[in-house]
């Protein structure tokens, strides 16, 4: 058996195995399967409309966001959201985040993850079903495909037919449209990293940087491949989230389920036929044909289900037609299914230890970030004492320590600072680059400057020191605002 087998080959092998002389009945079938193309049928209903709305909103945010302007004065870009990699900073409205403050971005990621946990614990895979870019773009690509090639049955027929002119132009039109969407997607992505209007002119005139074109190309290709071609394969085979979410869901999380208790035994139903002694499921397979991942929701909760709710719309439509109540497939919880409850959403327990924990974590992380954001200074000061040598004995028997003060001026104006040190009485300051004990240190806008200074004491003061390490305070004073920033460090000596 070869790796290239696939299902058909597998069947052929099994036929061979049927022969009495079969050598190895335990031979595995192929470990690779041909892709079963899925032809999702168009759904109509509440959830379909919600999904269209979410798609429209998310796409609008994605395309419009980089074009929103924010006036930051003459020296800074006026793009509201700009990942300014060239200058190692992130501009979000009034907030400017430097590379060394990247923990804010980490914080946002932590918050996003916690929010995803909370939403999943409460309402299941809402992200997968509605807001994930893969879902949004796949939805868009399928809509385009449907526009050119028709709905499920028409597309299946077209794929089975031989290559006629009609098939050729329909397929070409589909792929061309996909490619245009892909280019627009990749194109919008690069606008987040450079001034959008400038970059747009450059992209069109062919003068943008190769980096911009490269990323535009990469995102065009991935959008075309993942959204147009791979679709549900990304969710089923590539995405880690379906595996992780098993740990997030519990008996009280909302998820979409077929109500077996009400639906079974299933079977086709003729008009005028009694509903006594049978389930409500008429086995029409409407839920299967609309499913974008090609599963049967009636098999229960499964990894491939992205909880897009289109099967609810499909089933409700059928239930209306056959005159049975809606909600044979509906959002429910495991707890409800266990009690065989027929009412959808009866007793949806949202407040649980798990959701309380996630909410508390979100509040804690969010509060901490907000607090630190409100209290952050436009000057960053750090002080590092020399480690090698820790201290120097002077010829008069005194001691000297060296320090490097790094001052970051995050504002867009030049600033002047003065440095002082307290904690060791009688200590004298001495600067490598400046004269005198109290020089004025000028720092240009958006610049970091390292200032080296020494702190020396005489032999008399040395005797006053206790132990080998004395706490001191280095204070940097902003001369324009008077704001003082102090950092604790130590003055080292040999000890007694």
């Amino acid at each position, binding site marked *: 058996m070869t*790796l*290239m087998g*696939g299902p058909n080959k597998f069947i052929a092998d*099994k*036929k061979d*195995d*049927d022969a009495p002389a*079969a050598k190895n*009945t*335990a*031979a*595995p*079938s*192929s*470990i*690779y*399967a*041909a*892709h079963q193309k899925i032809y999702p049928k168009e759904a109509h209903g509440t959830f379909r409309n919600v999904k269209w709305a979410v798609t429209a909103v998310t796409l609008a945010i994605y395309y419009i966001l980089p074009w929103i302007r924010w006036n930051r004065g003459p020296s800074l870009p006026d793009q509201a959201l700009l990942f300014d990699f060239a200058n190692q900073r992130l501009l979000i409205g009034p907030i400017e985040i430097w590379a060394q403050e990247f923990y804010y971005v980490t914080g946002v990621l932590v918050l996003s993850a916690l929010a995803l946990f909370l939403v999943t614990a409460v309402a299941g895979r809402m992200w997968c079903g509605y807001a994930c870019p893969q879902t949004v773009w796949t939805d868009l690509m399928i809509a385009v495909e449907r526009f050119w090639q028709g709905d499920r049955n028409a597309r299946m027929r077209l794929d089975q037919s031989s290559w006629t002119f009609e098939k050729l132009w329909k397929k070409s039109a589909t792929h061309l449209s996909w490619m245009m969407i892909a280019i627009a997607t990749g194109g919008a992505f690069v606008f987040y990293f450079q001034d959008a209007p400038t970059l747009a002119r450059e992209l069109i005139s062919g003068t943008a940087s190769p980096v911009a074109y490269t990323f535009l190309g990469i995102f065009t290709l991935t959008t075309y491949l993942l959204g147009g071609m*791979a679709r549900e*394969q990304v969710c089923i*085979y590539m995405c880690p989230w379906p595996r992780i979410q098993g740990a997030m869901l519990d008996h009280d999380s909302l998820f979409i389920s077929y109500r077996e208790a009400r639906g079974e035994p299933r079977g086709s139903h003729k008009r005028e036929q009694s509903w006594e002694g049978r389930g409500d499921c008429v086995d029409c397979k409407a839920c299967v044909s609309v499913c974008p991942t090609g599963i049967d929701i009636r098999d229960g909760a499964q990894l491939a289900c992205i909880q897009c709710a289109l099967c609810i719309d499909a089933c409700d439509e059928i239930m209306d037609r056959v005159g049975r109540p809606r909600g044979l497939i509906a959002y429910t919880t495991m707890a409800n299914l266990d009690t065989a409850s027929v009412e959808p959403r009866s007793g949806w327990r949202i407040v649980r230890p798990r959701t309380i924990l996630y909410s508390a974590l979100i509040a804690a992380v969010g509060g901490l970030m907000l607090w630190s954001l409100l209290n952050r200074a436009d000057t960053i000061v750090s002080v590092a004492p*020399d*480690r*090698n*040598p820790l201290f*120097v*004995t*002077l*010829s*008069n*028997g*005194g001691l*000297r320590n*060296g320090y490097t003060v790094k001052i970051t001026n995050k504002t867009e104006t030049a600033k002047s600072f003065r440095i002082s040190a307290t904690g060791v009485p009688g200590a*004298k300051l*001495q*600067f*490598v*680059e400046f*004269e*005198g004990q109290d020089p004025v240190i000028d720092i240009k806008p958006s610049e970091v400057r390292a200032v*080296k200074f*020494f702190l*020396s*004491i*005489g*032999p008399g003061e040395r005797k006053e020191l206790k132990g080998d390490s004395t706490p001191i305070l280095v204070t940097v004073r902003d001369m324009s605002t008077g704001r003082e920033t102090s950092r604790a460090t130590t003055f080292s000596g040999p000890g007694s």
Partner: protein
Amino acid sequence: MASHKRIDEVTGAETTGHVWDGDLTELNKPLPRWWLYTFYACIVWAFGYWIVYPAWPTFNGYTKGWFGYSQRDQVAKDAAAAKAAQDKYRTAIAAMPIAEVKKNPELFEFARDGGAAIFGDNCAPCHGRGAQGAVGYPNLNDDDWLWGGDLESIETTITHGARSGDPKTHDTAMPRFGLDKILEPAQINDVANYVRSLSHLDVDAAAASRGSAIFADNCAACHGADAKGNTEIGAPNLTDAIWLYGNSQQAVVHSIETGRGGMMPAWGGRLDPVSIKMVTLYVHSLGGGKPEPKKEEGESEHKDEPHEAPK
């Protein structure tokens, strides 16, 4: 047909047919074939590296590849670019006296940073990575200098070394008072006591007072009557708190017996003059650098007020 398929009873799915520990089986959940094709495509792509990049050794070299890429060339190019970027500073430093370099903040910063790298490569093995020195190897952070601590003196010492054999090196040396039997062991003990008393160390007072006269006769010529030393001839100040070979009675006695006479290589032939200027500025900036001596003719109008170490 069904009899040969291994079906898992619980799921109804087919198994791979493998059995472990008697009853463990694995469901057959085939990966999609596009995955397999992607894997093959990656293998083909990998062959591309053989073609476009250097890959195979040959009898007289190696296959160069279509792109003609070479990491050596890349390094050479980067090094040349870095050198070109430094040239502007180095040319400027070469053209001016070392004291002038210090007055130019941009050149001073370049010199200190470059000097730190040069120091790490050349000087750190003896003087230590932080220039903190060791017994016999001077600490360059402090304000005590054997051969002078102003910029020009440091530059001279680095260029010509100490007792290095260089024609212009500092080649004065202390006599071997013990080994050459210039002084008796008891005299050496006395003078060691005296010298240590100058630094207010605990000494045998009687021996120290005997040693005073011996010092005047034998040591004062170089170290000075006040024992404050002389940087012209590399005679250390014996009254301060810094002792290159240690301040114990034993160590001082040993210094007098043997004369010590540590040496430092001349770097003039190994480092270019600009590099020596840079490393000089670095060493001078470590905290103990001394101001330039006042020029006699009064031609130096504007003296850079030094950051002198406190006394």
